[in-house]
């Protein structure tokens, strides 16, 4: 009979001591302590650790509630097997692991590309490394994770301009900048603790330029707010570059010595005069000119961006345009400058670094590079590794519909809520032959699973995490997982071992990081011993154990083949969907400061649920008056893909013609899953929609038609 192996689980510190952890929510990577007294856990602010991302141990509302979900009664405690859709019976770990291993092996035997693996940006580097190793050793590159839905275009865009798909600087550089452009990024709400660095810069006299279709809380602090229409970012970036080039404000030395493609850029931006851009974006020409001059003459500039820029059918080009704007001003490779894409999950940077992507091995080593392929064959002691790039998240759900994917392994993700056009995802998941979900709660996605594997929550487990600044930090375990729940790395390791793949033989999570050190050049010197000692973490690239880590990238050269930045000359193209008579509004999505993504964790906290209890669709007062919509009226949002009912909030936060709705509660039934051709990110941030008031007056409305 098959017997699962035990593992070493240490609750790191002695009782009564402070256990250092990393917050399990966003990409800032805040440090905190947990104090254990008997069964009681208490959160303490990490006021005494130097140089951590959250100075003085400050935490946002979500950070204050990180212990709430751990003890929730709905936690998964036993492996479950589906009796029918959404109904489960408990089984043992022996049976669960055996069944998963056998089914995966069986499907892989026909054609490994019938399998799809979804890694998780919410768990440590180690299980993510193991998941892609499992997929690749089974013979497929169908492995991806939710970075596809958030920063996929940042990775492809920055790789093609600068050579590496990560933030080029640290939070400290934002503090030192003289001008900060915050582009499509509600910094104050999505990364509240990181926003302090912006305020510190502002206090010093730095100018803040916010580019956002909504008047967000971030825009409250702006010196210049460029409120463009969703999906017109390239036009705006080109407009800014037009002014900078026309007025000769670009960094001529930097452009000449360290970039290529400037002449094409000049040609393309020629027609993007502020007046022309005003027509496309709705931003007054005067403001565009002022913003361009302010940014180019600041001396030290940073651009931060997030979903507003990336979640677009032109996401790849958007990122390249913004990176080009930085490069022509010479704001790369020195203190107080840089490109700062802000990551949304605590370990989305790490999951990307670990190669949970369909086209790269750990450390962004291309699977198509024969030398790397041979290295990993030897390193993992396997005869065959595929060099054919695999499927991405959204592509996979279409492949399932077509019957091309039969087995789906989901680790700690919830695509039913998080994927654009989620109605389609649900339809697809029903078609699967075999689906495994490994999670801490019975999520909306887990309802469709055949086998559910109960995982330890991040804080019940230890390992390394990489924050948005490329800073790798170690988080310790504060308690044992409830019931039979097990750490992610143990589960995948057991499945790998049971399938019969050699080298899945780990006793401790540290063993896995040591293996990562050997095959990921950027992580070469980031050993478990160093991380445990240095709580403030180490910034990759860190090639060997004596290397202090690298805070600023591209000081001397870019990581492209010719070592220069490749400027992008891109034309404005409209979003995939434009408003028409049937769908006269543009719909965009956003989030609340006190809720997190699909609510799996933050939704369990009473303090958060009380304050951020429901989605409110924001609509401009003039549009609302035309439709007879008042505050708190129930409204129905309709797009070509679905309908969504919620309450309305009449506010000037949005422009006329724009509707904005938070997506935590499932508004992705509305959004568009048309993909960016290069990064394969869906166009989540702009689609055509209509809004109807429902309730008492709906009959009047319908008689009009």
């Amino acid at each position, binding site marked *: 009979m098959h017997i699962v192996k035990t593992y070493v689980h240490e609750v790191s510190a002695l009782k009564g001591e402070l256990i250092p952890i990393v917050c399990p929510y966003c990409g800032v990577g805040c440090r905190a302590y947990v104090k254990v007294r008997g069964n009681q856990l208490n959160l303490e*602010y990490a006021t005494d650790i130097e140089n951590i991302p959250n100075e003085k141990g*400050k*935490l*946002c509302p979500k950070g204050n*509630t990180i212990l709430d979900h751990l003890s929730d009664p709905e936690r998964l405690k036993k492996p479950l097997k589906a009796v029918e859709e959404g109904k489960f019976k408990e089984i043992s770990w022996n049976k669960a692991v055996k069944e998963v291993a056998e089914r995966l092996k069986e499907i892989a035997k026909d054609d490994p590309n019938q399998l799809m693996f979804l890694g998780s940006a919410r768990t440590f580097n180690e299980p993510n490394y193991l998941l892609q190793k499992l997929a690749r050793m089974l013979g497929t590159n169908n492995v991806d994770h939710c970075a596809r839905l958030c920063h996929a275009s940042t990775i492809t865009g920055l790789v093609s301009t600068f050579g590496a798909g990560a933030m080029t600087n640290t939070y400290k550089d934002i503090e030192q900048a003289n001008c900060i452009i915050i582009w499509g990024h509600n910094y104050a709400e999505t990364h509240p603790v990181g926003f302090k660095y912006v305020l510190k810069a502002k206090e010093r*006299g730095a100018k803040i330029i916010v580019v956002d279709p909504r*008047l967000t*809380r971030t825009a409250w602090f702006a010196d210049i707010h460029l409120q463009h229409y969703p999906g017109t970012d390239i036009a705006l970036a080109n407009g800014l570059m037009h002014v900078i080039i026309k007025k000769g404000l670009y960094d001529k030395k930097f452009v000449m010595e360290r970039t290529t493609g400037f002449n094409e850029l000049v040609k393309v931006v020629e027609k993007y005069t502020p007046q022309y851009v005003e027509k496309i974006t709705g931003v007054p020409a005067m403001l565009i000119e002022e913003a361009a001059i302010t940014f180019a003459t600041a001396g030290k500039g940073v651009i931060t961006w997030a979903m507003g820029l990336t979640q677009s059918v032109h996401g790849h080009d958007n990122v390249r345009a913004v990176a080009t704007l930085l490069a022509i001003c010479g704001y790369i490779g020195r203190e107080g400058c840089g490109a700062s894409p802000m990551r949304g999950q605590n370990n989305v940077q790490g999951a990307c670094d670990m190669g949970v992507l369909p086209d790269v091995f750990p450390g962004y080593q291309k699977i198509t590079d024969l030398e790397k392929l041979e290295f990993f064959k030897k390193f993992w002691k396997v005869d065959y590794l595929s060099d054919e790039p695999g499927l991405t998240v959204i592509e996979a759900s279409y492949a399932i519909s077509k019957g091309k994917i039969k087995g789906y392994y989901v680790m700690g993700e919830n695509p039913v809520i998080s994927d654009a056009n989620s109605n389609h995802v649900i339809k697809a998941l029903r078609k699967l032959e075999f689906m495994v979900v490994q999670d801490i709660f019975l999520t909306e996605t887990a309802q469709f699973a055949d086998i559910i594997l109960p995982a330890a929550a991040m804080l019940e487990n230890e390992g390394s995490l990489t924050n948005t600044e490329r800073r790798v930090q170690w988080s310790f375990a504060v308690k044992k997982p409830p019931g039979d729940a097990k750490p992610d790395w143990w589960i995948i390791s057991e499945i790998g071992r049971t399938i019969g793949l050699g080298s899945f033989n780990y006793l401790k999570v540290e063993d896995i990081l040591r293996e990562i050190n050997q095959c990921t050049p950027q992580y070469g010197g980031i050993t478990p011993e160093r991380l445990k000692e240095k709580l403030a973490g180490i910034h990759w690239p860190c090639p060997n154990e004596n290397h202090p880590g690298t805070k600023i990238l591209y000081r001397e050269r870019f990581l492209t083949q010719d070592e220069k930045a490749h400027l992008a000359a891109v034309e404005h193209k409209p979003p995939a969907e434009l408003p028409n008579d049937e769908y006269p509004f543009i719909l965009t999505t956003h989030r609340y400061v006190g809720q997190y993504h699909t609510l799996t964790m933050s939704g369990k906290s009473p303090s958060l649920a009380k304050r951020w209890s429901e989605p409110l669709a924001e609509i401009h007062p003039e549009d609302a008056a035309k439709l007879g919509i008042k505050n708190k009226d129930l409204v129905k949002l309709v797009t070509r893909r679905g309908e969504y009912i919620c309450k309305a909030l009449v506010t000037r936060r949005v422009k006329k013609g724009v509707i904005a709705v938070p997506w935590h509660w499932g508004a992705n039934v509305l959004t568009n899953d048309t993909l960016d051709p290069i990064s394969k990110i869906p166009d989540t941030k702009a689609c055509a929609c209509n809004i109807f008031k429902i309730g008492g007056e709906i009959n009047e409305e319908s008689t009009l038609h």
Partner: protein
Amino acid sequence: MKKALFIDFSKCIECRACEVACEREHGKSHIFVFEFEGMIAMAFHCKHCEKAPCIEVCPTNALYRDEEGAVLVAPQKCIGCMMCAIVCPFGIPELDSVNKTMSKCNLCAHRRAEGKEPACVATCPTDALLYGDFSEIIRKRRETFVKKAMKLGKESKKALGFAFI
């Protein structure tokens, strides 16, 4: 030494971390964040007034001031008459319906006893909430303002070719 909780509303991002942290410490929040006109937000809490009407009016002397200047309720003396709530110009004291006593912000007396800051201050991500010697906080504010003015002066010199200061 007299200390105070100071609110710099120009830095408030309405994240409500102070409310959540306060609720974590006290079971319910004694600090409240309000947004005005969709353009600005501010946290609001007990001001621990110098001439506190609540202390003056309390018939059982349940309200008192500690050595750092915080106004506290001694629950064993409180009879829940709500006089303090009536005279408070800010509407701060509330009736704790379980214990039948008044409850209000005590600037986290238990945390201060351990040498820590009140929870709302310890968590505030943008330092919009500050706790310390009041005159020191005000002095820092003046300093920040003067620094900014000097910078503006330098810039105008650059732009206009002469100095204002």
